[in-house]
């Protein structure tokens, strides 16, 4: 599907062996480092233009840390994030300003994403104001444009966040991400805090926006059905690593990795007669502190073999566009 594009042209985002480790310290007076939280443990992926990559996994898998690394809210311990071939963490000055106009974000909680003391139009225009020289009228014009794009009335600009509902606030958050005409928006669970019927509104909006302008999304989510609706490609993360990565249709048609299968089994379909594939995992979602060597998933894997505890599996291509990291293959 997208192979031709990625070979011929440098993708918008390229992540190479990205890792983020947080030290675990003990001791009151002198902090000793007793371990490492390997939140992200060597992942690689690309995001093309006008493409959506879904990143799924449960708590502790590292998807949120990954999104923060892309947004420069964290510094990587190893690896690189490249935007059009440039290392984003090495940017300074005018290049950095430019970066902020090209990469934006929408977070999960609509109730804490907006500064309650600022009028909506101030929040929306912030990226513009901070990174580019805009006149007052230019600013207001752009605010109106994006309010229109997200389906909010123009009068919303003069109001304060507390006057809006959760769904409307997420639209405002989206508008503020769109204001500087970004090429990539990182969406971290954009609809999970919203009511079911409102989710559909926002998801349709995201799809429409992508169809009309050169916009890519990194969609971090735990709800597989939501991801399926918007993402062109999907990567499944577990304990800091990508265990499977494929074109969305390919992944959903034929999940390969045991964890992916468990996730699919846990995504309860809204159909009482759907066949029950009760792959119930034993144990807890483990902590990413000093995980065991070998495959990170083996303690809970129903198909674990002897070598899984010793050797970490490599990412192998099983079919075009579909890679998986598992000794079963």
């Amino acid at each position, binding site marked *: 599907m997208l192979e031709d594009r990625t070979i011929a042209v440098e993708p918008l985002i390229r992540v190479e062996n990205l890792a983020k480790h947080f030290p675990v310290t003990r001791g009151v007076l002198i902090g000793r480092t007793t371990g490492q939280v390997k939140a992200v443990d060597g992942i690689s992926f690309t995001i093309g233009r006008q493409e959506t990559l879904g990143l799924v996994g449960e708590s502790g898998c590292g998807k949120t840390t990954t999104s923060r690394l892309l*947004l*420069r*809210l964290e510094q990587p311990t190893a690896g690189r994030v490249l935007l059009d071939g440039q290392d984003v963490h090495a940017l300074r000055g005018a290049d*950095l*300003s430019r*970066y*902020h*106009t090209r*990469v*934006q*974000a929408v*977070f*999960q*909680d609509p109730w*804490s*994403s*907006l*500064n*309650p*003391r*600022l009028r909506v139009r101030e*929040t929306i225009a*912030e*990226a513009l104001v*901070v*990174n580019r020289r805009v006149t007052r009228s230019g600013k207001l014009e752009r605010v109106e444009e994006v309010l229109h794009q997200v*389906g*909010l*009335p123009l*009068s*919303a600009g003069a*109001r*304060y*966040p*507390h*006057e*809006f*509902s959760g*769904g*409307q606030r997420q*639209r405002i*958050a989206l508008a*503020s991400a769109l204001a*500087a005409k970004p090429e990539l928006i990182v969406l971290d669970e954009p609809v999970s805090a919203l009511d079911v019927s409102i989710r559909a509104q926002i998801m349709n909006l995201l799809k429409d926006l992508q169809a009309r302008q050169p916009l890519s999304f990194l969609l971090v989510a735990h709800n597989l059905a939501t991801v399926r609706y918007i993402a062109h490609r999907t990567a499944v993360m577990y304990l800091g690593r990508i265990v499977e990565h494929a074109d969305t249709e390919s992944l959903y048609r034929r999940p390969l990795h045991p964890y992916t299968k468990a996730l699919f089994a846990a995504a309860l379909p809204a159909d009482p007669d759907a066949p029950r594939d009760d792959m119930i995992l034993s144990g807890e979602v483990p902590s990413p502190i000093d995980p065991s060597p070998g495959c990170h998933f083996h303690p809970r894997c129903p198909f674990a073999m002897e070598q899984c505890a010793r050797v970490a599996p490599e990412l192998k291509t099983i079919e075009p566009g579909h890679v998986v990291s598992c000794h079963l293959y």
Partner: protein
Amino acid sequence: MARVEDRIDVELAAATAADDAAHPRPRGDFARLPWGSFVIIAVLILVAVLAPLIAPHSPTEQSLPDKLLPPAWEAGGSTRHLLGTDVLGRDVLSRLLYGARVSLIVAAVALLAGGGIGLAVGIVSGYLGGRTDSFLMRTVDATLTFPTILIALLLAVSLGPGLKTIAIAITVLIWARFARVVRGEVLAVKTRDFVALARVHGCSHLRIMAVHIVPNVLNTFMVLLTLHIGFVIIIEASLSFLGAGIPPPTPSWGQMVSDGRSHIASAWWLSVVPGAAIMLVVLAFNLFGDWLRDWLDPRLRQV
């Protein structure tokens, strides 16, 4: 098309209703205001500003034949000196009115300076964190362990008595309290998503502190300011009482209380009148501060 509508969250409704029930008030927002406090504070400000115009006598004018006159409603009092005279024949009422100026000026200066410093330190410490935070907070801790009056006395003795000294002494005493509370608020605000999003927008740390942090801690800060007015007035009065405050002949309420000590049995009004004034004003500001906090709170919750 989405409508901008006032939606009521059922949980919020329950929470504010519980709050309303805990503070039962007659119907109508109008009656809920702390009128008593408003009046007293308004009178205080008016009196301080207009003292030269309303005072019947000069506060320093001595009149020995008229010394130790009781207040007008007592036997022996006179309407020329409504609240009596002190041991040097000076009119108590006039001294009271001029004394209000001292209290207010000291309070205003000390609060602005101390509050300002405390706000700045709290914001920087809370937002930047790390070593800056550790260092600043150790300084705060050290300041807070000083015995209040002792420090003020030491400063007064080394710098010489006067308005400036008292203002400095009080500033040094209160900035740390503000810094600590503000830092706590900043830590809470810092975790909210809009701060991270401001960084994603490309805002500098300075802009984030000014535009995103400060406005969201201002409510707490204002309440803290109001609640400290009483404290500051009492410190000033105590210092003046101990002789380390405003030097005579400028009247200061604390000084007046101190001067009247030796005559407490015979000329009670010398200490009681200024003492009552202090008490009333401090009470008014405390009630005002309480009301302000309650008034701002549900609005905060709605946001």
